[in-house]
């Protein structure tokens, strides 16, 4: 929502009226001697640059969002579930760690390891 001043409203009204005139202006007058090919080449280059920059911004935003999620959400898994998950991953990846060694790892470390493995799984 925005509250506009009198001058801003006048500016919007001017732009709207002028825009209508511009839309009605014949094609040859709009182009004013410039070839459609030149306009197209410029527009294609603009679209390519904007697509690249938009991709970069989306990636930055996604990373920031993921970091915020990680910082805010506690690990929603029990110690038992985390231990079972890690044991399964270790088995699947043929990682040599005895069940006894896994049991010796403190709960806090188990949760940290669990979170790291889940991140690797869902980048």
């Amino acid at each position, binding site marked *: 929502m925005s509250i506009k001043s009198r001058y801003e409203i006048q500016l919007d009204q001017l*732009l709207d009226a002028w825009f209508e005139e511009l839309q009605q202006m014949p094609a040859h007058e709009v182009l004013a001697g410039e070839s459609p090919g030149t306009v197209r080449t410029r527009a294609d280059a603009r679209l390519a640059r904007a697509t690249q920059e938009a991709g970069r911004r989306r990636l930055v935003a996604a990373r920031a969002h993921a970091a915020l999620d990680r910082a805010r959400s506690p690990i929603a898994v029990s110690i038992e579930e985390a231990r079972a998950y890690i044991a399964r991953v270790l088995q699947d990846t043929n990682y040599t760690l005895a069940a006894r060694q896994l049991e010796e790892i403190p709960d806090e470390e188990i949760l940290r390891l669990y979170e790291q493995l889940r991140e690797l799984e869902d980048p």
Partner: protein
Amino acid sequence: MAWDLKDPGRLTYQEVRDALSQMDEVDLRRAERIAGFLSQRLPGMSAEDLLQEVYTQLLSGDRRFPRGVHALVVLKTAMRSEASNVRKAGKASPVDPLYQPENVDAPERRSPEVEHLAREELEAVVKSCAGDSQAELVVLAWMDGLKGEEARVVTELDLKTFDAARKRATRKLAGFDRAREGS
């Protein structure tokens, strides 16, 4: 704002790309004319910069591309909004501290400085018709929200004179008398 896939009223990323790439050359040139008009008094931003920034915001999902609205209309509205944001960010921050340029959809705050900027811009637009009093009358009527016959009546010009003045005003505001900026 990011892409909201649950919003059926906005185009998806691919649809935005299609809409922009399928614009014809005449509308593309119209978009450049509008960018030229809106960027004339922008600090450090050319017409091409403004147009590309709006393309980027639409493609990144930071700006909503409403479904069923012509691409040129979307570009015009987005450029007007972005130009206003840039102007405020460049000049109004000391007296408008709650303004948040990073969020284009945030509620807007107004200050005397922002109003002053809009007034300055209006005066500059009228000045672009200096020396052509009839075109200036047309621009003043447009500023008051009048179009077509209503505008003609207010200007007290006859039909033929008004028509010619209207066309001259359109060309002056479109920058036909200036070199093409920023592209």
